[in-house]
């Protein structure tokens, strides 16, 4: 039933080699970090960042020229071979991953730099290896076109993300890491179960071939439900979000930034690919409304809990729970009721823009919250008074990132929510518009509470603030500015 593979004619398609490079480079750098050992981990890691950024830019340029890049690994075509495929969605995610990973790497030089004499560099080695591993896994998730290949990407992502949670080795972060690992493992085993059912029914795991072969029948339904449920657990969509706040809030700031900004987007991207590319004919109104309902629950519940947090990093983590909800509004809004299938359009563009702008803003927010906590020696929101005077740049970065999360113009968050709102109006689904607006109000409420505290008078018992290097404050500021001005860059593909 599987046709014999045909070796590709000699010569690579133009630009497609960059797809391999974007996955291979972080892996090579990871191996060099491990080979270099504790003393050279930070130096090798930092040197790897600009190369990765350049490769992501090369892929994006290739896509701007050709529209789509496809690479058949080893010259074997699907269904027996594995294809790597990049389109506009992949290019945007590759770029933002490279930018945020580079920012996190530079920011982390103070925490996980080269160990001085007498220090051990084990955490530093673990951080750089995990950062590069997560980068490679994310790139594979954005480029993979084969459902089993994506399973491997998901697992690699988990294995890189779990150590990031428990870098400091305290009992509470170990617990958070184990909870995260268990959620992620259940998620990926359910995904694998769905993949095997699809292979059993259609004899292929290539998304392009599945899109042609898959029929709306019980086996496909069960497979899609299992895979989606597994991916939702990994994306931390309400009500499967319980692992996220302790894991993201307990990690060191640079690691939190990568986890919250990027890692949850990897599994979200695969949900998008699954429904839009692999099984476009399977979607129906009820299933899409259910995904949207979970998204709406995440927005309202996550924002309400963020309002009640006493600690800044937990507030930012609950804000991630809420912002993930917006991503899943794409499904009901992109559903074309007349044709009975999902259609790429304003809603999909809005969802992608939300993923990208949230990645930039949330990375900036976690990094600036980390600097504020470092300066004060704690991150209790009630004790933030006076930080506006002692750490104005960090607070500005936090506020600018907040501008994008709330969705004020001209930020990327504004453009994303505008596209989602206009899709809600165009398809006559006003209830999602209500959720989007309510979510924006709640977001502004919890961020304004923080800013009011931070701009207020310092408490009587306030201790002298710890010094923070100016270059560290620049990293979140640059990321926040990118998020704010992304809306001006025009609509992404």
């Amino acid at each position, binding site marked *: 039933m*599987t046709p014999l593979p045909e070796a590709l004619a000699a010569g690579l398609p133009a630009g497609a080699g960059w797809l391999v490079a974007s996955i291979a480079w972080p892996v090579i750098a990871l191996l060099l970090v491990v080979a270099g050992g504790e003393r050279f981990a930070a130096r090798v890691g930092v040197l790897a960042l600009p190369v990765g950024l350049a490769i992501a830019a090369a892929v994006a340029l290739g896509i701007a020229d050709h529209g789509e890049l496809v690479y058949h690994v080893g010259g074997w075509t699907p269904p*027996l071979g594995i294809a790597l495929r990049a389109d506009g969605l992949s290019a945007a995610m590759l770029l933002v991953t490279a930018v945020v990973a580079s920012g996190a790497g530079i920011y982390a030089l103070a925490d996980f730099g080269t160990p001085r004499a007498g220090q051990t560099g084990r955490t530093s080695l673990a951080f750089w290896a995990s950062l590069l591993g997560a980068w490679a896994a994310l790139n594979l998730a954005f480029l993979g076109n084969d459902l089993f290949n994506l399973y491997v990407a998901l697992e690699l992502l988990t294995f890189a993300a*779990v150590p990031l949670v*428990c870098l400091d080795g305290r009992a509470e972060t*170990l617990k958070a890491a184990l909870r995260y*690992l*268990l959620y992620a493992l259940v998620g990926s085993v359910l995904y694998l179960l769905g993949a095997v*059912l699809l292979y*059993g029914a259609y004899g292929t795991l290539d998304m392009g071939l599945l899109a042609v072969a898959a029929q709306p029948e019980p086996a496909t339904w069960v497979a899609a439900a299992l895979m989606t449920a597994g991916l939702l657990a990994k994306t931390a969509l309400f009500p499967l979000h319980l692992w996220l706040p302790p894991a993201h809030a307990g990690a060191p700031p640079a690691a939190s930034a990568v986890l919250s900004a990027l890692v949850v987007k990897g599994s979200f991207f695969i949900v998008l690919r699954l429904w839009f590319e692999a099984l476009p004919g399977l979607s129906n109104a009820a299933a899409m409304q259910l995904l949207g309902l979970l998204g709406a629950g995440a927005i309202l519940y996550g924002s309400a809990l963020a309002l009640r947090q006493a600690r800044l990093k937990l507030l930012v983590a609950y804000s991630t729970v809420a912002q993930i909800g917006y991503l899943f509004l794409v499904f009901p809004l992109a559903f074309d009721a007349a044709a009975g299938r999902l259609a790429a359009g304003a809603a999909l563009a809005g969802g992608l823009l939300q993923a990208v702008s949230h990645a930039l803003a949330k990375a900036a927010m976690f990094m600036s919250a980390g600097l504020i906590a470092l300066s004060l020696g704690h991150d209790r929101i009630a004790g933030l008074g006076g930080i506006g005077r002692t750490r104005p740049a960090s607070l500005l970065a936090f506020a600018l990132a907040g501008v994008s999360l709330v969705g004020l113009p001209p930020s990327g968050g504004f453009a994303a929510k505008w596209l989602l709102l206009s899709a809600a109006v165009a398809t006559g689904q006003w209830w999602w518009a209500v959720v989007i607006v309510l979510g924006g109000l709640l977001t502004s409420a919890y961020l304004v509470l923080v800013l009011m505290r931070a701009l207020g008078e310092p408490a009587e018992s306030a201790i002298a603030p710890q010094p923070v290097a100016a270059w560290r404050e620049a990293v979140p500021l640059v990321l926040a500015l990118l998020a704010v001005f992304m809306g001006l860059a025009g609509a992404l593909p």
Partner: protein
Amino acid sequence: MNPTTLFGLCGAALVGIGLYGLLTDPRLLRKIIAFNLVGSGVFLLFGVVARRGAAAGLGGDPVPQALVITGIVVAFSATALAVALLLRLHESGGGATLDDAADGARTDRSRS
């Protein structure tokens, strides 16, 4: 009942038992073992799919067998990582469950 159906049902039963254990047992080591049960069930289903999709003259479709090897390696690494984290958690005095209240009462039992 032919062997393929029998193995398929076995796989489904393993997945069910494993999921039940994962959701209900608070002890982390049991959860890790339950995850391995789910994994074994899924791998058995890979074998069933390979057998059902066997081309004429071949004993089985080779692709699921190639996939299942990768799957086993991944599940093994996941288990190793989880057990290593659990050991670290236990050493640092954090107990052996995710439920803070149950830690004191259950730590001894889960070690046995």
